[in-house]
C-alpha cells in the first residue's frame, strides 16, 4: 500500500524564526455535549485526557485534546492511530448523541520555532500574542491573513498552526513572508 503524504511534504524555511510543515498528524473532530458528565467521563476513558476548558489545549505524549467550540473538541493522535481512535471514541460514547470524524487529511500543520514566534504570528492573526494573554495550554481559532487557522504553543518559543490542506501553500508562503529576516518588530522579547 502507498504511504500517505502531507500537503507540502515537510517543506521548511529558515527565516528569523523557523517554519516547518509538520507532516502528517492525526486529528479528529468530536462533537458532543461538553457539559454532560457522561460525555466527559466517556471521553476521559477513551483518550485519557480531561475535556479542556474554553480555549484550552492539553497533551499527554502524542495524544492531545483542544477546545474548539462549546460543543466541539479536536483530538490529536499519531496519524496512523487516527482510525482506531475514531473507533475507540465511537465505542466509548455509544448511544450518546455525538459525531466523531477523522479530519487528519483535511488539514496541514506548521511548526514555528524561535524566540520571535509570537510577533511573526501577530503579523498575520488578530490575536493578542502577549505572553500574559496567550501561551502554552491555550488554543485560538483565528484568521491568518485571509484563511481560517488555529494556533497553540506546545512550549514557549514554539507555535503550531493548523489550517485547511488546500491552502497549505498559501499558509506556508504567508509564514515565510512574515518570518523574512529584516522584518523583525522587536515585540514580546
Amino acid at each position, binding site marked *: *500500500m*502507498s*504511504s*500517505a*503524504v*502531507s*500537503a507540502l511534504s515537510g517543506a521548511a524555511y529558515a527565516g528569523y524564526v523557523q517554519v516547518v510543515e509538520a507532516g*502528517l498528524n492525526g486529528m479528529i*473532530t468530536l*462533537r*458532543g455535549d461538553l457539559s454532560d458528565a457522561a460525555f466527559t467521563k466517556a471521553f476521559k476513558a477513551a483518550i485519557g485526557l480531561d475535556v479542556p476548558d474554553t480555549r484550552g489545549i492539553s497533551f499527554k505524549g502524542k495524544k492531545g485534546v483542544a477546545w474548539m467550540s462549546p*460543543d466541539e473538541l479536536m483530538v490529536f493522535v499519531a496519524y496512523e492511530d487516527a482510525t482506531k481512535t475514531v473507533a475507540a471514541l465511537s465505542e466509548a460514547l455509544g448511544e450518546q*448523541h*455525538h*459525531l466523531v*470524524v*477523522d*479530519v*487528519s*487529511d*483535511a*488539514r496541514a500543520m506548521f511548526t514555528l520555532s524561535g524566540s520571535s514566534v509570537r*510577533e511573526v504570528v*501577530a*503579523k*498575520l*492573526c*488578530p*490575536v*493578542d500574542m*502577549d505572553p500574559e*494573554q496567550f501561551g502554552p495550554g491555550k488554543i485560538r481559532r483565528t484568521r491568518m*491573513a*485571509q*484563511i481560517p487557522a488555529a494556533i497553540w504553543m506546545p512550549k514557549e518559543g514554539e507555535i503550531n498552526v493548523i489550517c*485547511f*490542506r*488546500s*491552502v*497549505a*501553500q*498559501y499558509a506556508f*508562503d*504567508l509564514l515565510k*513572508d*512574515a518570518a*523574512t*529576516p*529584516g*522584518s*523583525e*518588530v522587536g*515585540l514580546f522579547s
Partner: protein
Amino acid sequence: MSTRLATGGRLLSKNRAIEFTFDGKRFKGFQGDTLASALLANDQMLVGRSFKYHRPRGIVASGPEEPNALVNMGEGADFEPNQRATTTELFDGLKARSQNHWPSLDFDVGAINAKLARFLPAGFYYKMFIHPRPLWKHVYEPFIRQSAGLGQAPKDRDQDTYEHLYAFYDVVIVGGGVAGLQAAQAAAKSGARVLVMEQSDHWGGRAPVDGGIVNGAPVDKLVDDLVDSLTNLNNVTLRLRMMGAGVYDHGYLLGYERLRDHDPQIGGPRHRLWRIRASQIITATGAIERPLSFAGNDIPGVMLASAVRDFIANWSVSVGDRVVVVTNNDDAYLTALWLHEQGLYVPVVLDARKAGGGVLADRARAAGIRVENGRAISKVKGGKRVTGVAICSQAGEGAVLEEIECDAVAMSGGWSPVVHLWSHCGGKLIWDDENTFFRPDVDKSPTGADGTSFVACAGTANGVMALGDVLADAEAAGRSAAEAAGFKPKRAGTFKADVPDYAPIVPVWVMPQGASHPLRSKAWLDFQNDVKVTDVQLAAREGFESVEHTKRYTTLGMATDQGKLSNINGLAILSDALNRPIPQTGTTTFRPPYTPISMGAIAGEARGDIFQPLRRTPLHDWHDENGVKWEPVGAWRRPYCYRKTPGEAVEDAVALEINQTRKALGLLDASTLGKLIVKGPDAGKFLDMLYTNMMSTLKPGRCRYGLMCSENGFLMDDGVVARLDEDTFLCHTTSGGADHIHAHMEDWLQCEWWDWKVYVANVTEQYGQIAVVGPKARETLKKLTKDDVSADALPFMGWKDLTLAGIPVRAYRISFSGELSYEIAVPAGLARALWDALLEAGEEFGVMPYGTEALHVMRAEKGFIMIGDETDGTVIPQDLGLHWAISKKKDDFLGKRAQERAYMKDPNRWQLVGLETTHGEVLPDGAYATADGHNENGQRNVQGRVTSSYHSPTLGRGIAMGLVLNGPDRMGELIDFPKLDGTVSKAKIVSPIFYDPDGEKQNV
C-alpha cells in the same frame, strides 16, 4: 535668500554630508535634514506649482501640515508622488522632482490660469462643465483628468514589501511630545501596557524648540529623562516614525510605521501598518499654527513663524537675512528673538493687535527689534520669492503706509489644536473664545460599545497652551486612561514651569480687516487646494450656508490636507460672510488618514503569490505537470482541460476528453465537491427539511440526488446524499456551496432547531475525490481490487467501501456524465497514489483525465442542470422540470411555503427546455430569445434566454439549455436569438436531454 547657518541645528549631524537631487540638480545636505530643510539650505525657495492657478509655491511649514512642498520621489519601481518634503528625511541619493508644472518649475505654461483667475472662481467646474451634456464625456472629462492632480501616477510595480501587525494595548498614546511622554509615564506607572507612537524621528515635539524651564531644568532634560525612563519599562513600547493614521470604532487604531523611507538601503518591509486594539487612546498631537490671510501670503518665502524657528533650531537653516514677522499673538515674538539671536535682521514685527504683545514683545523691543502695533501687511511683494512687504493699518482697507524690503515673512495667526484623531470617531469640539480655536469637548468624546469614552486628548491637543499646564494635563490624562483601562493609577510627577505672561490673542481672519476685493482675491486660505478668501465669500453669497457644502463647493480643506492650515481661517471667513458666530457655523468632518498612507501599507502582505489564497486539490501538482489549462472556481483552481501537446487548441482538447470518456475511460478530479457529514437521531428529519425531496427514507448503502432551496423557494444547491448508517448521512454539495451550505445547516441547527439532535462536520478537504467514468470504468476498478464491484454488489446509486490499489476508499456509483461512473473518495494524503494507480490500470483502455469543460458538456448533453448556470437565485426547481424531486408527501421543507406563492405558481414562468439551432451552430451563452413588440423602455420584448450552451462533440452540433416562456408546451417551435454581430440564430425547442434519454448507459 535662504541658507545654512554656521552653528546650531540640534537634529543635524554636520559631519555627515548627503547628496541628493531636486529636479535633476545636485544638492548637498546633512544627516538629520528633511528634504525641506535641505532645499532651503540650498536656497531652493520655489518647490512646486499650485493646484489650480499654477502659482509658484514654497515651503510654508516644517511638519505634516505642509500644503505646498509635495514632490515626486524616486523613479521607476520606487517612484511615489505627493511626498511631503517637510516629513521626508534626507538620505544619500534621494531623487525628488517638483510637481504640477510644464515644461519646468521655473517656467510653467499652466500659470496662465492665474491670469484667468477671475474666470475660475469657486464652483467653476460645476458651472462650466454641466452643459451641454454630451461634451462632458468626450471633451471636459479628458481635459480635467489631464490637468487634475498634483503628482504623477506611478507606472511601474512597487518594488518594496509591506506588512501588517496586530497589536493590543491598554493605553495607546499618539504623539511623542512632552504631553505624550508624560501621559505615557503616568499610564505606565499603573502597570498598563502602553504604546507611544511619534510620527517624526525624534521625541519631544515642539518643546525643545520653544523652550521652557520645568522644575528648574530646561525642558529638553525632561524629554530625555522621560524617554530614558520609558525605555526601561517593559510594559511600554516606544515607536518613532509611526503616525496615528486613524481612530475607529471599538478602540481600533491604525499606526503607520515608516521603517526605511529614511534609508532605503536598510532591508525589510518599507512600511508596517499596525492594526491596534486599544482600551484607551490618548491623542497628544499638539497644535498647528495658522497662517494669516493677507494678499500674497502664498509667495515663496512667506512661512509660518513656528516653521521659521524650527528651521533655525532643528536644522540650522535661515529662511532669509531679513525676515518680517507678522502676528496677532505673542508666540511669533519667539521667532523674532530666535532670528535676532542668530544675527539675522528682523526689520519689523507687525503686531495686528492695537494693544500689542506682552513680556515677549518687551523682550523683542529690548533686543532692538522694531515692533509696530496695530499694523498689518497690505500685500507681499514678489513673484517666485518674497522681495518685500507693503505695510498698512490692520484697521483700514490696505492703504500702504510704508514698504519694507525683506526675503521672508514669518506669520502667525494663532494655534489650532490637532483634533483630527479625536474627531475621527465622533469626538465633538467646542469653540474657545479666549484662545480663538476649537478644542475637544471633553463631555462629548468618542464612546465605545458601553457608552464610555475611549479617546482623550492631552496637552496642546486638548487646548492647553502653557508648558506647566500641558504637563499637568498630560499627567491627568495618562492616569485616567490607565484607570479607565482597569488599572490603579499612580502619580508620576508634579511640575512647576516658568512661563512668561502672554498677552491675549486677537482674532484676525482677514488682513487688513477691511481688505479690498483685489487684496482678498490674493489672500489664500487653503494653499493645497488653491482656495482664496473671495472663494469662500462667493460660496456664501451663492447660498452655501452649510460648512460641509461650502467645503465641497470650494474644495476648502479637502483631500490629503484635511484642512490642517485652512480649516479655521476658512470657517471664520464663512461665518463672517454669513453673519453668524463661528461655533454656529460648525466645522467640517475630519477623516482618516491624518496624512496619506501608502497603498502598499494598506495591502500589507497581500500581493504577488499571497495576494489571495489559492486552494489546491491533492492532485494539483499532477495537473500542473500535465498540460493543464486552469480554471478558477472560487478560490480553487480546477483543470479546464489538459493540452495533450503544447499548442493544442482548447476545443480539440475538450472534444478528445469527451470522446475518450464516452468511448472508454475518463478520470476527473472532483475533490472540490463539498462533503458534509450530518449525524444524529434527528438527521433524517433535518435533511427532509433542508432538501425538497425525501431523504429520511434513503436506505444505508444508497445514494439520492437532492435539491436545496432557500426559505424564499429559490434553488440554492444540489448534490447527491449518501446514507452511511442509520444515523449518518454524507451530503455532497456543489464546489462553491461547501462552506455556505455548511453555514446554512449550522444556522438552522443553532438558531431554529436547536433542540434537534444533529451534528454537522465539513469533511470536504479530508478526501480527494476521483470520478472514474466511462464504459471501461468497472473493468478498471476490477484490476485494482479484490472486492466485488459488479452491478449487483455496487448498483447504480449505491455506495460501497473498497480497497483499491491497497488504499481504503469509498466508491459512490453516481454519474454526472451519463456514463457508468464511480466517484471514489480517498483520504487526501493518498489521493495522488490512487490517481497514479488508476492511470496505470486504465492505460490499456486509453484512460484520459478530463477537465471541467468536458464535465460541463457531458452534463449538458444529459440535460443535468448546473447550479449557477441554470439557476441564478431567481429560479425554482419547478422552472427546471424538477417536479419529481419535490416531495408531495412532506408536510414541510425549506422553500415549500414560498413556492406556494402566486408568483411562483404563475404558468408564465420561464421553463427549462433544450435548444437546437437550425444550422448546428453554438448559441451565445446568455442570449435572449426575442418576442414580438417592444417594452416601455423601447427594448425588444423577450421570451426566454440561454442558460448553458456548448458544442457537443458527441452529437457533432451545438446544444443549449434555456428558460423559455411556456417552453415545455412548445416542443418543435422555432424561436429567434439575435446575436451581437447583428445576425439571428434560429433554434428549435426540444427536450433538454440530448443524449441517452433513458439512462441506459449509466445503469449498466
